[in-house]
């Protein structure tokens, strides 16, 4: 009798497992845990009622890229996961991410056309789309209004070129030796936008990087020159870890940051009056440059429940979810339809900052923040060169030659 009941239970369990589809979602820990959990509770669960699909969020607070590479290799990866543009390419090339074109064709609510083209483009490899962008960020000019008022200088505007922008910064920096114009984070993740404005591309037609490209050299000299004249300062030199921290310390008038800055100001400098403007244009090319930081939802190619996973993806990237995320000021939506959202037109600094960052994605020379198969190793030599010049350890010429040699070695490998 007992044996029979056990057997029955086993049969029942197997039956349940067959009909119920359990979708696991992998993403960042920290704040994302709260947001995605709430998103699932408010939108995903109600929409999936009766379909037998259950959803679970698995936050990873450690290095997410390393986790997902290991999990995909070991076959324990979640069905849906975050894919940062910075490393998505290596996963996609390995064939562990499911191409989504077929699903788009069958779907009624999720089409790639609904999203900002440059974002979709960033996750397209060899004609196939591998990820649905969930949100994005670009760089914008965040400035401290009080410092500009104090110096009696006009605020940075969307019409600024490098020259007019520099002139404004110079006047602000003249207030006091301990006040600086621009936070000069020695990183390509900031400086790159300026190099792109001047016309630099990370890889030329032969797939090589040329740091002695006149466009790169010009941007490099302009950026590092500000450290020399005291118009700008490296955040490290005023005991700050990043440009945003420097801005929040109110010792620096301008930082080139993304929408993450809004939250940082809320936390660190809630009293600060700030504004935002688009990145300055290059005086000759008349173009702005920008970097796109974006994260997409990717699907595990080895997932047993792909159809169900795509259904969940449809909900996660739906307009109403993105609207909810936007209204809470959490991230900037990737759907084109939300461009003229009333939220953006509100008259407060946060909404305007988000709008400026939103516009940044489609104005001028905008490239996604990734460097092919080289990834972060491609940026390291440039970051070192920036830092070496700005801390007066090397001249521009020396630093660039050293960086070029390192890049050549990297690419020759």
């Amino acid at each position, binding site marked *: 009798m007992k044996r029979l009941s056990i057997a029955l239970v086993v049969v029942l369990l197997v039956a349940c497992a067959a009909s119920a589809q359990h979708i696991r979602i992998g993403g960042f820990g920290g704040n994302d845990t709260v947001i995605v959990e709430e998103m699932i509770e408010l939108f995903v669960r109600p929409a999936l009622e009766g379909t037998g699909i259950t959803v679970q969020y698995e936050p990873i607070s450690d290095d997410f890229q390393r986790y997902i590479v290991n999990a995909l290799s070991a076959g324990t990866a979640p069905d849906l996961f975050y894919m940062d543009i910075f490393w998505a390419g290596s996963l996609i090339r390995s*064939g562990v991410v499911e191409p989504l074109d077929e699903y788009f064709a069958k779907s009624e609510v999720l089409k790639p056309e609904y999203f900002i083209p440059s974002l979709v483009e960033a996750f397209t490899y060899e004609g196939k789309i591998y990820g649905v962008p969930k949100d994005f960020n670009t760089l914008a000019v965040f400035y401290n209004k009080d410092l500009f008022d104090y110096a009696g200088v006009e605020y940075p505007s969307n019409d600024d070129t490098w020259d007019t922008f520099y002139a404004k910064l110079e006047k602000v920096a003249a207030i006091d030796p301990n006040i600086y114009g621009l936070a000069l984070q020695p990183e390509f993740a900031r400086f790159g936008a300026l190099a792109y404005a001047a016309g630099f591309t990370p890889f030329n037609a032969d797939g090589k990087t040329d740091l002695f490209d006149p466009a790169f050299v010009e941007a490099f000299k302009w950026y590092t020159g500000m450290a020399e004249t005291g118009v700008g300062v490296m955040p490290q030199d005023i005991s700050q870890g990043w440009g945003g921290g420097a801005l929040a310390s109110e010792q620096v008038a301008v930082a080139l940051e993304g929408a993450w800055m809004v939250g940082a100001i809320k936390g660190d400098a809630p009293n600060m009056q700030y504004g935002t403007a688009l990145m300055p244009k290059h005086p000759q090319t008349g173009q702005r440059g920008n970097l796109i930081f974006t994260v997409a939802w990717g699907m595990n190619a080895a997932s047993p429940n792909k159809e169900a996973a795509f259904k969940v993806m449809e909900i996660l990237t739906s307009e109403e979810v993105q609207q909810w995320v936007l209204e809470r000021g959490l991230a900037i939506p990737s759907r084109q339809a939300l461009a003229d959202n009333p939220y953006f037109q509100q008259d407060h600094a946060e909404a305007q900052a988000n709008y400026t960052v939103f516009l940044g994605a489609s104005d001028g020379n905008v490239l996604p923040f990734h460097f092919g198969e080289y990834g972060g190793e491609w940026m390291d030599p440039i970051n070192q060169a920036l830092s070496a010049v700005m801390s007066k350890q090397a001249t521009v010429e020396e630093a660039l030659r050293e960086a070029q040699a390192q890049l050549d070695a990297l690419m020759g490998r």
Partner: protein
Amino acid sequence: MRRASSKVGEKLAPYVLLAPFLFTLIVFFGYAFVRVVYFSFTTYDLFSKPEWVGLKNYVNIFRDLDFTRAMKNSLTFMVVVTTAQTIIALLLALLLNQKVRGIRFFRAAYYMPSVASSVVVTLIFIWFFQRRGVLNFVITKFKEYQAIILLFLFAAAAIHIVLVVWEKLRRRPVSVFEPSFMFLGVLIGFIVAFGAVRFGFLVPREVPPVDIIWFNTTKTWPDFLGSLAFPIPLGAIMLFNIWTTAPTFMLLYLAGLQDIPRELYEAAAVDGAEGWHIILHIIAPQLKPITFLVVTMGLIGTLQMFDQVAILGSQAPRSSVITLAYYIYSNLFPSSAVPRVGMASAAAMFLALLTFIIVYAQRKVLGEEGENA
């Protein structure tokens, strides 16, 4: 019959008892080791099937500039850190082996760096070594007060020398390092320096803040060593690695010192041995097994140094701090690129072989007594 079975049981017993340990050893080390050996002859990226390429990985790692840098860094690190930490550990142990009140407190205090987690210690040090960090501040202060400190040292030394010479002239038996004179010298030196500042003969100099860049630099030091000089960021890591590991080995030495029989000291005292003679002829030979242990553990530990480089991350140029262990890791998990498991495995095999050779050579040099350890 019965006897035979009990004999079998007797032979089996040790293996049964060892089984849990052997199991973990075989599964987590043996199996992993075999896999690494196999992967080192293949190209493998964790996703596609491994492909046999023979010795290509081994050839490639030697062509890789990063690998040769890593090897040089690792070897420099090994030599400097092992030497320094062994000597410092011995000196600390000698100091802490004295019988004075409260010595337990000092033993605990000195052991702190070894107890604290390596991550925490590294973070504290990263923060200390910033361009506007505590270390540069201390150096700045030192430069400001240089003249005063020199005056103090000079006065203290002068008084000490005068007193010693005075006693010697009067033909009294006095040691050159007479502690009471030293104490007096320090006291008077302090008064002199304090007075000089108080009455305005000397004022702290105005110096610009010292701007030594400890991490974000490709410079090397010391210059006269040419290509043998080590990168400054590696030097910074050496400093705090010595700081954290010396106390661990100090503890071993301390245990060794306390094992030395009293009779040896007494016999030496009867023979009129003093100071350095005791250290050289009694303590050093008695501690030889401990030294063997300390040096071996030091060599292995320094060759495997990884965490401090990993935590330092992008704060220092990769080429200046990369070590063999970090090279392996960075090939296994390159930032946003496909894992190069083959290269990583080949480098791991090389590191294992190198460690084995160095430890073996060390054993030959330090002699067979080491086996007692």
